[in-house]
């Protein structure tokens, strides 16, 4: 799984990083983004809903920062 590091970056950076990483990748690919921006907790699932991806859930990176996991395509 590809993990994107958006620590310290404000919204909409985490969603932008996901969208760019999703380009050219096939459905089913799993991506994760690590972000301390509080908006990511709402915006990553909203991005999935709007773009037809699947939100897999939130866990934590090794340093305790929130990590959001998605699967491309429905």
């Amino acid at each position, binding site marked *: 799984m590809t993990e994107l590091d958006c620590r310290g970056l*404000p*919204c*909409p950076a985490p*969603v*932008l990083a996901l*969208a*760019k990483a999703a380009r050219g990748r096939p459905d089913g690919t799993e991506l994760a983004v690590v972000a301390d*921006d*509080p*908006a990511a*907790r*709402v*915006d990553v*699932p*909203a*991005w999935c*809903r*709007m*773009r037809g991806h699947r939100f897999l859930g939130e866990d934590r990176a090794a340093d305790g920062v929130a990590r959001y996991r998605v699967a491309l395509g429905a």
Partner: protein
Amino acid sequence: MTGPGDLGAPPSDGPPAPSGPPSAAPPPPWTDLDAASARPLHPAARAALLAAYEQGYADPRRLHHGGRQARRLLDDAREVLAGSLGVRPDEVTFTGSGTEAVHRGLLGLARGRRRAGTVLAHSAVEHSAVLHATDWAVRDLGCSARPVAVDASGRLDLDALREALAPGDVAALALQSANHEVGTTQPVAAAAELAGLAGQVPLLVDACASVGWQPLPAGWGVAAASAHKWGGPAGVGVLLVRKGVRWRDPYPADDRSDLRASGFEDVPGAVAAAAALRAVVSEAEQTGARLHRLVDRVRREVAARVPDVDVVGDPDDRLPHLLTFSCLYVDGEALVTELDRAGFGVGSGSACTASTHEPSHVLAAMGALTHGNVRLSLHPGTPEHEVERFLDVLPGVVARLRAEVGM
């Protein structure tokens, strides 16, 4: 200006030209599409305000001529306002703002109902005035807060409310009449019925977003409104306390003409607020119907013309003049700035536009996209051609901002 509905129209033709060489290009037109933040003073309020500054400056508690005159103006204002809201004059208290009315209203219920319970329940999408008053009660009055979930349109979940009321420890429920960010109307009457069944729990209805546009919903025990939202002066709020509701003043007492208020009465402000409300209520149905249709069209057009946009809030059961949408990949502050440059004043709930740098708790509770957010709210006199111009300009602005970040 195109008709009688245009009374109270905001500026829509640009700021005064700066003094400079006569050949300087005129400033671009600027249209205020942020009526939900503030409306300009209604002409009826302006006249009343000026007259009351002459005749109503004296202390309304004094028994001399000037005092009696001020008192008469204040009592008249109370009566006119009560008539426009469909309440009793002795239920009306003038406050220094909508925020103060919310604070007094909610904290007064917390005090008055202390024996019945210590939990303050509120919908997850209340205005910050409710959330701050609740925080204060948690810190200083030993209360606890119980937020109640909303659905994706921002409407209170009545099943969640039933659950929140079940333990029987709720002192008061705060529920807005309609949401100030997304426009969705709340089921106040249904919530009041559930609250009534759960031990006569009173409702604080924050009606700041809807008064002037919609009648006060049935079911309030205490209610709050704000004059600058309906074309009255800023710094005038209204607290309603229904006869028989257990409410106790949460603040130090004062010996004013109204025992629920404190500080020297702003008689001109009250008079102007009442005059404005009477004027807008008489036009509200017609104006509301027209703006409701216009907002319908804007909702459809925004969704059709801008890719990757989340148009949020209930499409039908909502405030007539307001809509909210969020654009993927766009920074809210940049969007507000670019739209301002293009000649439009809009609101935003995006984190980067807030003093707290937290995303809007309203959008978050709904699961709506929080970045790239724009709130449009029309004035009664907003020209339709300016709304058209907004629709023409918006797709290009969004596309340009997306291109700048590689999207």
